[in-house]
């Protein structure tokens, strides 16, 4: 396992950012998904020791995050969300510097910095001062400093933030490329669902400091494949009442259509049987949950309902 979290709580004064989170990030690429303020960045910073963990236990690559902090930091890379730069240095000097800080020999760091800067697309700009970089270039240099020492685990905090569509695409390609090499596990914290959908095998959904979902991306989509969007001819109200009495859940309702989640182990045949029995004709039946975004929205709604 790359990361294990056991009842992790992180507080800023009286504000609880992460509340008793228990989760496992296995090897591979894991998305840490959630809206702004969900606690994603705080969780990563807590794991890195940048903010204190109030309670709970966490391990990274088998090492306790508090006792083995210095050893862990040799094995991980961190791309912060903020616009972080080492002022006064050129791109090459900054990546070399961070490589040396990570424990690389000076010559190795120099040689590797050239390679990494070419890999992230900053080969031509490597002799420019980092302060003069555009937003997109700053994102790339942050990635370069995080991967220069080829860490075993890479934390990416909102790597596509502030990028134009093309830059975003390139950044995701790069992340995919690194993930495909298979030498590095990646934890990608983002609020952009498509980024997770495109790059991650697994997703942990956070909201208000709690874990809402922890599953494989594909499984999550599959798990909800018994949700359908349907349109009927006939008495809609009584049909919906019937569905509810049979254990179905009615979700979003549009003018003509509504979404229904069937009880576990039931298929669409079940709907047809009920429709036939109540004299209703099903005009349209399509799977309602098709993207991770739908899952995310659904989970958020469930969470809000539970709060009420």
């Amino acid at each position, binding site marked *: 396992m790359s990361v294990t979290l056991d009842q992790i709580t992180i507080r*800023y*004064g009286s504000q609880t950012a992460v509340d008793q989170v228990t989760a496992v990030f296995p090897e591979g690429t894991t998305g840490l998904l959630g809206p702004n303020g969900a606690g994603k960045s705080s969780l990563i*910073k807590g794991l*890195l*020791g*940048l*903010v204190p963990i109030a309670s709970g236990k966490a391990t990274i690559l088998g090492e306790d995050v508090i006792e083995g902090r*210095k*050893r862990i*930091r*040799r094995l*991980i890379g*961190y791309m*912060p969300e*903020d*616009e*972080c*730069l*080492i*002022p*006064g*240095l050129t791109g090459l*000097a900054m990546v070399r*510097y*961070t490589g*040396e*800080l*990570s*424990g*690389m*020999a000076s010559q*190795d760091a120099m040689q*590797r910095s050239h*390679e*990494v800067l*070419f*890999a992230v697309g900053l*080969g031509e700009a490597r002799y420019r001062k980092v*302060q003069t970089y555009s937003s997109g270039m700053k994102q790339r240099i*942050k990635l370069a*400093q995080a*991967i220069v*020492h*080829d860490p075993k685990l890479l934390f990416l905090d909102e790597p596509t933030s502030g990028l134009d569509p093309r830059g975003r695409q390139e950044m995701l390609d*790069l992340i995919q*490329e*690194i993930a495909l*090499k298979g*030498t*590095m596990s990646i934890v990608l914290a983002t609020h952009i669902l498509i980024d997770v959908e495109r790059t991650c095998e697994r997703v942990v959904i956070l909201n208000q400091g709690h874990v809402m979902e922890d599953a494989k991306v594909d499984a999550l989509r599959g798990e909800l494949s018994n949700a359908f969007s349907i349109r009927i001819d006939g008495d809609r109200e009584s049909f919906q009442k019937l569905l509810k009495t049979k254990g179905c859940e009615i979700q979003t309702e549009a003018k003509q259509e509504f979404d229904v989640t069937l009880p576990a182990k039931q298929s669409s045949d079940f709907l047809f049987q009920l429709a036939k029995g109540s004299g209703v004709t099903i005009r349209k039946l399509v799977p309602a949950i098709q993207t991770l975004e739908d899952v995310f929205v659904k989970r958020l709604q469930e969470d809000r309902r539970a709060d009420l």
Partner: protein
Amino acid sequence: MPIYDQAYKPWEGQLLPNPKAWWVIAKTGIRLMWQKWVIVLLVFSSFPFAVRGVQIYLMNRVGDSSQLGDFTDKLEINPGFFEGFLKGQTFLFLLILAIIGAGLIANDRRFKALQIYFSKPLSFWDYVGGKMLVLAFYSALITVVPAILLFIIQLLLSGDSTFLVDYYWIPFSILAIWMISVLVLGGLILTLSASVNNSAAAILFFAILMFSDIIRKILSRIPDVGLASIGADIQQVTAVLFGNPRPHDFSPYGAWIALLLVVGICLLILRLRLRPTEVVK
């Protein structure tokens, strides 16, 4: 197969078993600060060195010292000569500490670089030690290096071992004074750099030194009030280390304790201020 693959490639090298992050920070800091104005300042600071060098030459090469008249006592090469040289360099020493030190941490804070630093395998001591070494290097160029060179020149020109036998301890005193000054004043400027912005840190640095000295002068009738002046404390300790008469009437032990206290407070504030993440309330 491409001739040169620019895609991401895993690294097959090995990390150093015991990397010295403080040294990496120090050497990068020194390289970054090596700018024209620093070189100008260093050239400027070499004038007193040249004058003292001429003094040594005169005292050793003018055969009949009576030719120097009443100045003979004043020109004599003794511990007072070296203490005087260091005292003369004080302003440039403070200037270089203020100009270089003010931005050392403030710029990292401004560009949020602390998150990058502290996600690497380095400790608080590595970071502060590295930054302190930058100050130590540049301040050494205007204090320790010329002072030790003057000592060597005196040894070479004196022609016998009498001076070395009598004053072998002078280089150690020079080193001790330099280390104490860098620890105390370097600690102070780094603390300010970690607390306010670049220019405010430099201004506050001089303000604190001047204000504490003004208080000492105003309240000079109250015993031991001079301890409140960092400058006076350093002067007192310097005099003790060179075996010269003490310039102030308070106890040198008190001065040692006061300086230790300043270093302790600075470290405490640095510890609190050097947070990688600014918490917005």
